[in-house]
C-alpha cells in the first residue's frame, strides 16, 4: 500500500499551517436562488435543493464519503466498495483567496480553492481523498494535503493515444481497488463492480439524451440548469441523480422553445458552480451554449463503460479505457481527438462556432489554444478563445468580445 507522504514532518506542518475559517465560507444562498429564478423547469427544484443542503450541511455522513478530483479517478470502483464518491473540484473565489495563505497566488485557482477548503477543515467528514497525477499542481497537491487528510495518489501514464499504456492503467486501477478494499474492509468483487457500472451507464444514457436535446434546442434546459445538474452530480448519489435528471429530461422534452440566436460549443476549462461568469456573459451577449466538451459534463458522463471481458480485470480495464483513454483532459496527450470531437460536434449539430474557455493560470488549457485555433481557422469554424479568472472585474470586456463574436457569426450567416 502507498505510504503516507511527509509522515516525518506531519506534526510540524499541522501545527503551523492553517487557513482562517469564517462563516462566509459557504456560498451564500442568494447566488443559487438567483439562478433558480431563471429556470423554467419545475423539476429542477430537486437539484437546487440538493445543492443548498450540501452548501449548508456539508457532505452527509450516511455512507463513507471519499473525495476525488478529475475523471481519471474511477467512480465505479468507489461505488463498488459501497463508498460515496464526492468530486471536490472547486472554483470558489472566496476559498481561493484563503488558500493563498498556503500556496502562492499565481498558481491554478482550483488548487488554491482546494487548499483553502482543506486547511480550514471544511471537509472533515472525508476519510480519504484520491488525487490523480493528471497535471503537475495536482500531483503536488497530494503532498500538500497529506498532513491534513489521508491521501491516495493515483499515478498514471499520460499518453492516452498509446494502447501499451492500458496495461499500466489497469495495474494502477487494480492497486486502487485493492487500497479501497483494505482501507474500508470491504469485500467487493466482480459483481459489485458490474452493478456500479450499470448505475453509471444508466447515467450516461440520461446524459446523452439531455445532451442531444440541448444541442438541438438549447433553451429547453437552460445553460445554468445544465451546469447546476452537473455540479449536483459531484456529490449526489448516482441513483438519485439519475432519477432527478430523468424527470428534468422528460419535462424539458415537452417544451419547444426556439431561439434565433447563434448556438455555440463551449470547450475548455470546466464551468463549476459558483463560477458561472462565462456562461452569464454568454447568455447576456446572446450566444446560446448548445453543446460542451468539458470534463465535468461531456467528459464525465458521455462515455459508457463497455465491458467486454466480464472478469474483474476486464471490468477494471474497461474503466481505464473510459476514464483515461477516452478522456478529453488537456493534461493528457490527446489533442487530435479533441479537435476531431470539436469539428464533429459542430458538424453534427450544425452549431455556429466554438468558444474555448481558459481559466487563467491553468497552463494546459492555454498551451493548446494556438494549435486548436489554427486548425479550426483552416476548417472555417468561428473560434473565440477567452481567458479569464475567478474575479468579476473583466465582465464588461468579455461581453464586448462575445458580442463582436456573435455579430461575426450572424454576418457570416447572411
Amino acid at each position: 500500500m502507498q505510504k503516507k507522504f511527509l509522515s516525518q514532518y506531519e506534526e510540524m506542518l499541522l501545527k503551523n499551517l492553517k487557513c482562517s475559517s469564517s462563516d462566509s465560507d459557504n456560498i451564500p444562498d442568494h447566488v443559487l436562488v438567483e439562478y433558480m429564478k431563471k429556470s423554467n423547469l419545475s423539476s429542477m427544484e430537486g437539484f437546487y435543493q440538493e445543492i443548498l443542503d450540501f452548501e449548508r450541511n456539508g457532505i452527509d455522513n450516511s455512507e463513507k464519503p471519499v473525495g476525488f478530483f478529475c475523471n481519471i479517478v474511477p467512480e465505479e470502483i468507489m461505488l463498488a466498495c459501497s463508498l460515496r464518491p464526492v468530486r471536490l473540484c472547486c472554483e470558489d473565489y472566496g476559498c481561493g483567496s484563503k488558500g493563498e495563505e498556503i500556496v502562492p497566488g499565481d498558481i491554478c485557482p482550483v488548487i488554491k480553492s482546494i487548499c483553502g477548503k482543506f486547511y480550514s477543515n471544511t471537509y472533515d467528514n472525508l476519510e480519504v481523498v484520491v488525487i490523480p497525477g493528471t497535471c503537475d499542481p495536482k500531483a503536488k497537491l497530494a503532498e500538500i494535503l497529506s498532513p491534513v487528510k489521508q491521501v491516495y495518489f493515483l499515478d498514471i501514464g499520460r499518453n492516452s493515444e498509446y494502447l501499451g499504456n492500458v496495461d499500466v492503467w489497469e495495474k494502477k486501477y487494480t492497486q486502487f481497488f485493492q487500497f479501497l478494499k483494505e482501507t474500508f474492509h470491504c469485500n467487493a468483487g466482480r459483481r459489485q463492480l458490474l452493478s456500479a457500472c450499470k448505475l453509471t451507464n444508466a447515467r450516461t444514457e440520461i446524459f446523452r439524451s439531455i445532451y442531444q436535446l440541448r444541442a438541438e434546442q438549447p433553451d429547453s434546459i437552460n445553460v445554468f440548469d445544465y451546469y447546476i445538474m452537473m455540479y449536483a452530480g459531484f456529490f449526489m448519489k448516482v441513483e438519485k441523480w439519475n432519477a432527478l435528471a430523468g424527470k428534468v429530461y422528460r419535462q424539458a422534452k415537452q417544451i419547444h422553445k426556439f431561439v434565433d440566436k447563434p448556438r455555440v460549443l463551449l470547450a475548455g476549462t470546466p464551468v463549476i458552480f459558483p463560477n458561472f461568469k462565462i456562461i452569464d456573459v454568454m447568455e447576456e451577449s446572446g450566444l446560446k451554449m448548445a453543446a460542451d466538451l468539458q470534463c465535468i459534463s461531456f467528459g464525465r458522463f458521455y462515455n459508457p463503460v463497455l465491458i467486454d471481458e466480464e472478469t474483474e480485470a476486464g471490468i477494471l480495464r474497461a474503466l481505464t479505457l473510459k476514464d483515461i483513454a477516452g478522456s478529453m483532459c488537456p493534461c493528457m496527450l490527446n489533442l487530435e481527438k479533441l479537435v476531431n470531437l470539436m469539428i464533429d460536434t459542430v458538424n453534427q449539430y450544425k452549431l455556429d462556432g466554438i468558444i474555448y474557455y481558459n481559466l487563467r493560470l491553468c497552463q494546459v488549457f492555454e498551451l493548446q489554444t494556438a494549435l486548436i485555433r489554427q486548425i479550426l481557422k483552416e476548417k472555417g469554424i468561428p473560434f473565440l478563445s477567452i481567458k479569464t479568472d475567478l474575479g468579476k472585474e473583466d465582465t464588461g470586456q468579455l461581453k464586448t468580445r462575445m458580442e463582436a463574436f456573435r455579430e461575426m457569426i450572424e454576418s457570416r450567416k447572411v
Partner: protein
Amino acid sequence: MIRISVARRIVQIICFVLLVYGGYIFKDWKESAETSQQKIFPTLKAPEGSVSTTQFEKGSILWPSGATPVIENYPPSLVCRFNPKGGMFKACIMHFLSENLTWQTSFKYLLPYITLFIALCFLLGRVWCGWVCPIGTVGDFLTYLRRKMNIPVRRFPERFRLNLSITGYSLMVIALAISTVIGMPNYARFQCYWFLPYCQICPARLICPMFGLIKPNWKDFSTGITTCFTILAWIVLGLFVAAFYFGRRVWCHMCVVGLINSWFNKGSGIELHKKAIKCIKCGYCADACPMGLTAMYQLNRDAIYNQAGCIMCMRCVEVCPRKGCLNVSFFGKKIGNMQRRTLDAKKVSEPVRRNVA
C-alpha cells in the same frame, strides 16, 4: 434492434446445430439431395488402389468418417468430416484438398467445388469464422466459461500471433505435400497411414464425434506412425483448448481453414468502415477484438479496415461508443445502426430546428 453480440450468439448456435447435427435432422432428405446435387457437382471417388475414408474401421485414427453427409460440399468453415452421422456438409476445405491431391482427381471435377468455395468466401469473407464455424462456437463457449470463472484473459503480443500463423501455414504446406506424395503410384503403400495427415492431428476430429456421443479414437499405438499422430493430435488439442480457454480465439490465428479464408477477407462483400473524425481513441474496439487486432483503432483516415486476421465478429462495431464511427456494409450498402441500443440518444420528439440553415 437486437444487439450484435446476441444476434451472433443466436446465429452461432443455429449454425452449430445445423452443421453438426445436420446428419440427424435431415436424415430423410439425404437421398433426394444427393441425386439433385449430382447434376451440378461431379461425384468425387477414390481411384482404384487408393484409400478412402469409408474403409476405416473402428480402432483406426480416421474412424468415424465414412458416413454420408446431407450435402456433399465444402463451405469455408471447420465443418468436420467426423461430425456424427456425417453432419450437414461433407468436410472442410483442408480435407477436400488433401483427399483429392492423394486421389489425383482431375482438376475439371474439382472446379465446381472450388468455384463455390471461393464464391462463398467472397460473399461473406471470414463471417464464416465469426458467425458460422462450429469449432469457433465451441471455442467461444470455452471463453464464456473462463469469464464466468473470473479468470482474466491472456493477451498475446503481435509477434506471437504472427508465429501462430506461420505455424498454421507450415502445417498446411506439410500436410498438402504429404498428401501429394502419397498419391504418387510409387508411394501408394503409405496411404493407409499417411492419408489425410491434417485430419489426423486436427482437434475437430476428436471434438466433433463427441457431440454425437460417439467416442472418437483417442489413441492408436499400434505402429510408430500412428503413435506419432496420436501424440501430435493430443498436443494440438491441448493447444486448442488452452488457446480458447486462456485467450480469445487464439486458435483461429493458426487454423488452416481460417488462414485460407483470410485470403479473401479484404475483398469480400462484408466491409468494415471507419470514420476517423468520430473516433475518440478510447480503445474499446481494440480491447474487445477477439483476434487482438488494432487497425480500427490506429486508422487516422476514413477507410475500410478489413484485415486478414479479422473474423468479422463485429464486436468492435458494437462496442464503439461513438455513433457512426465504425460501420458495416454489405456490397456497398450500409447495414443499419449496429451500435448498442442503450447508447443511442433518445429520439427527441419533433426535432425541428428552425435556426439551422
